[in-house]
């Protein structure tokens, strides 16, 4: 027995997610910022974090975007095998929701037609959508609002198996060193490793949708995440890059099987306006 989900309910959910993600920082992320405020040793760094928390409160109260770069609208969709979408096609329904959310939520439209033809599409579409088939009769939409400033400082490297874990850690820290203030720290760092080239990049992005600071269920990866946070914080870049002890709020690693000849690593940076929200239909 298939469960019917209408395209209009999908569009409605997407519209709401666009507005929620852009105007309300997730509780886990606010908690991570508050912990960073406690831990930060630089006075200027603490002032920056205080301003970020104050900004988040004002944005939530007035239902306005807390960052003007309301980004790419990225969705990870878990589509149950017992779901039947009715009334149209899911991709078009997500785009329609983005169109409405960005217009009705007073959000900036930041998408241009191509890297060469830089005319604005006018409604922040197309959404960037990754589908994952799952068992059951549910449909889960997880949105990540991805600003360009930090996405621009992200990187991917095809390491060799001989270079191994050490090179992987060095590459993550080097990427953050190179980004410096440009990626708007304190950061959430998404690391994807394994698969072929493109799989690592998508995993790095997906890693950013994990609730702030929730460790990887694999204990070895969880240890690696903590070690990387410490190494990143030792760079001294600090909040807004003005210098300080809190450069990364969290590192989230996602791993996938890979080739006998390969060790791909992708690092996707997210600024302190870390925007995720999800809905289940």
């Amino acid at each position, binding site marked *: 027995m298939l469960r019917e989900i209408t395209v209009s309910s999908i569009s409605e959910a997407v519209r709401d997610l666009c507005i929620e993600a852009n105007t309300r920082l997730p509780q886990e992320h606010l908690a991570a910022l508050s912990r960073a405020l406690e831990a930060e*040793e*630089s*006075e*200027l760094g603490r*002032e*920056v974090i205080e*301003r*970020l928390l*104050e*900004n988040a409160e*004002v*944005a939530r109260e*007035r239902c*306005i*975007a*807390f*960052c*003007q*770069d*309301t980004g790419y609208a990225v969705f990870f969709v878990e589509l149950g095998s017992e779901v039947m979408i009715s009334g149209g096609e899911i991709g078009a329904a997500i785009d329609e929701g983005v169109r409405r959310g960005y217009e009705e939520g*007073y*959000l*900036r*439209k*930041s998408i241009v037609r191509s890297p060469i033809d*830089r005319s*604005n599409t006018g409604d922040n579409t197309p959404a960037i959508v990754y589908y994952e088939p799952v068992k059951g009769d549910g449909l889960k939409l997880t949105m990540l609002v991805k600003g360009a*400033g930090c996405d*621009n400082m992200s990187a991917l490297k095809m390491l060799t198996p001989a270079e191994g874990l050490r090179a992987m850690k060095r590459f993550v820290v080097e990427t953050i060193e190179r980004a*410096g*203030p*440009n990626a*708007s720290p304190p950061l959430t760092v998404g690391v994807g490793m394994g698969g072929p080239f493109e799989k690592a990049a998508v995993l790095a992005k997906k890693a950013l949708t994990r609730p702030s600071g929730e460790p990887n269920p694999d204990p070895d990866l969880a240890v690696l995440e903590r070690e990387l946070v410490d190494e990143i*914080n*030792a*760079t*001294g*870049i*600090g909040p*807004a*890059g*003005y*210098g*300080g*002890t809190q450069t990364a709020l969290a590192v989230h690693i996602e791993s996938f099987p890979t080739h006998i000849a390969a060790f791909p690593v992708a690092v996707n940076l997210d*600024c*302190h*306006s870390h925007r995720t929200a999800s809905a289940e239909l």
Partner: protein
Amino acid sequence: MSPAPIRLEAPLSKEEIDPLRTGDVVRLNGVIYIARDAAHARMKESIDAGHPLPLDPEGNIVYYSGPAPARPGRALGPAGPTTASRMDPYAPLLIERGLRGMIGKGVRSETVIESMREHGCVYFGAVEGTAALLADCVREAEVIAYDDLGAEAVRRLFVEEFPVVVVNDLYGGDLYREGRERWRR
């Protein structure tokens, strides 16, 4: 506690920015202009073609930002700083013409920093991700050129107590470099 912020009224004279030092906390008042990527590309075309610019750089401050739409009753929608390095290829053209300040986030190129020192221009950092608070400092906003660019149009703003920090002063100071060196473990 950090020292009391320095209040400045824009446009600015060279003498007014001389005393500023890297790390100084400043509150800007008066007129500033918003322009980012596409507007800078067009201004360069105007300069190359010998046409007048939509804003006179002399004494003025450019804020690298692309605001979100304003809700009714607000002068400007949320408007935080964008990454300044994307404007590096264009910045010296305005600095040579008397631009006194730039507001953005992120590191500037050596070429831009050298041009700033030569002609007298400072680079201020605003805290990115505080778009709602920064927009609250904007009393008036008006699109003065390139309306078709939407969020990237050139806007003249009247601001009160707009909070910034001096990143690059006229004496080689660099808050990003110095801050990182101080806190590196």
